[in-house]
């Protein structure tokens, strides 16, 4: 039977697409399965190499990873013999991998919690989280109370907040994402109270969803949202408590919903880690930080 073989061939070809949506092609990050293959190959390469060659592996937040991938590229160019491997998997993964040594550096898109005091964080950029609506939505701002009421299901129609007579599509993030944690913490909400109409994975999916739905309300990283809005996505960023979600306000600290993007290590630092951290913090990468719509930290 030739046909079933053919079909199995199709499904095999489709399978790799079903990986975690966290890594987007735009940032040229490998999705995790390929990354694992890469690690295996690299293991072989490192095994053959002399001691002058070094490999750093970084895992964690999908918000930090694209920026770090760019920084890593520049670092590799100026440090021949060093390989930097970046994989996504969320901030919690960054913490765990840095602790148990799976990765030398964890990527964490929030400040460290008190119970994570055993780790050392290096802030390489600051990002904010912005509420976004579809570009066609006439609503120009929402108060904190209105946002809280919408996300808990107390307000369900845009007319109740000065918009068109249409039901609000509440876009929420899936469990475990630090963007969700930060959003809940800022608005003093518990994940059980949220009444979502759509649950999304990464920032890109959130922007696609809001751009395709004129009545959607979501929240994503300001960096990604500004980038996509500039590239023509039909979304608009809403001010929060009257403060515009722009880079100047994130830089000055006025924007209320912002977070540090951290590289996290478990001391003592593994060989080769300290120079990379210093490089990632240096003004040499300011242009990369800004090109991803993040704010370089005060140095």
């Amino acid at each position, binding site marked *: 039977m030739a046909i079933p073989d053919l079909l199995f061939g199709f499904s095999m070809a489709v399978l790799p697409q079903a990986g975690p949506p966290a890594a987007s092609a735009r940032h040229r990050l490998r999705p995790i399965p390929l990354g694992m293959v890469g690690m295996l190959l690299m293991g072989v390469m490192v095994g053959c190499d002399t001691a002058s060659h070094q490999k750093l592996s970084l895992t964690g937040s999908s918000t930090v990873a694209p920026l770090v991938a760019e920084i890593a590229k520049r670092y590799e160019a100026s440090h021949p013999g060093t390989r930097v491997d970046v994989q996504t998997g969320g901030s919690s*993964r960054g913490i765990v991998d840095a602790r148990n040594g799976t990765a030398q550096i964890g990527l964490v898109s929030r400040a460290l919690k008190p119970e994570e005091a055993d780790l050392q964080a290096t802030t390489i950029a600051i990002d904010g989280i912005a509420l976004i609506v579809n570009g066609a939505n006439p609503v120009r701002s929402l108060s904190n109370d209105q946002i809280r009421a919408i996300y808990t299901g107390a307000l369900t129609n845009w007319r109740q907040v000065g918009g068109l007579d249409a039901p609000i599509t509440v876009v929420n993030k*899936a469990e*475990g994402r630090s963007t969700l944690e930060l959003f809940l913490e800022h608005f003093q909400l518990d994940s059980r109270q949220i009444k979502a109409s759509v649950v999304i994975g990464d920032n890109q999916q959130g922007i696609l969803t809001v751009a*395709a739905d004129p009545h959607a309300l979501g929240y994503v990283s300001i960096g990604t949202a500004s980038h996509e809005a500039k590239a023509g996505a039909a979304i608009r960023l809403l001010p929060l408590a009257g403060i515009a979600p722009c880079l100047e306000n994130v830089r000055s600290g006025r924007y209320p919903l912002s977070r540090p993007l951290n590289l996290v290590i478990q001391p003592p630092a593994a060989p080769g880690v300290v120079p990379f951290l210093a490089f990632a913090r240096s003004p040499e990468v300011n242009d990369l930080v800004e090109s991803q719509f993040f704010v370089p930290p005060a140095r």
Partner: protein
Amino acid sequence: MSNPSSSFHRHADRLLLWTLRLLSALAALIVALILLFVLREAWPALHQFGPVRFLRDPGWHPASGDGDGGYGLLPMLVGTLLSSGGAVLLAAPLGLGSALFATSYGPPPLRGLHRQLLQLLGGIPSVVVGFWGLVVLTPLIRQWHPPGQSLLAGILCLTVMILPTTALLSEQALRDVPAPSLQAAAALGLSRRATLEGVVLPVARGGLLSAVVLASGRALGETMAVLMVAGNVIQVPASLFDPVRTLTANIALELGYALDLHRAVLFVGGLLLMGVVAVVMALAAGLRSSPGHG
């Protein structure tokens, strides 16, 4: 049998036999290893909560602390069954119709084209179907009934994805009907319709059923397209327009971000999915071997 080369042939046969045995054992071993691995990863959660809690818990809040979180997988199981079931209900008759077109009713010049189009459809990656669903299908559904990302959108995307499987396999099943049966039908002077109803469909029943089963398997396991269009809200849907989350979407959304118990519970979801697929396969095997049909 006293031929001098026969002992050589027997040896060659034995070699082939053992190679084949080894290969099939390997294939079975892979499935067993996957099952063992999933079981091992799911074990911490199964051990701590027992299997019943995953179906009884009212909510899904796996990241909110130990023990007091909700770990209800039932809404996602329902989401998986409804989206796949709906897609199979749509794709099976469409596939059969397409197969009849390709074997009996369609004008011969169009048949090849039709088949190639179906093969092309089968080659479209699921993310592309999902993207189409997100930007074309869900806005249409939203105009009808918000929010658009819904069980219905999931069913339609899945239908598009499994239609080639049902159509091409059904076509093969119809083609596998022995020519003498058809000749006998023609000799009896049966009409095309009577031939189909009385001869072709009953004889091809097993093959048609296989087509549906393989398609169900694919629908149950499909992840990306459903993740993009079905809304992923964890609830038992009250209508076709409510968003749902499937077991596969749940794993894809959360596995990269899950730690400890949360991660283990996601593997319980995987185990549940394997169970569902096994049940579907077993049902199909039972149906196929039911008396009176080959």
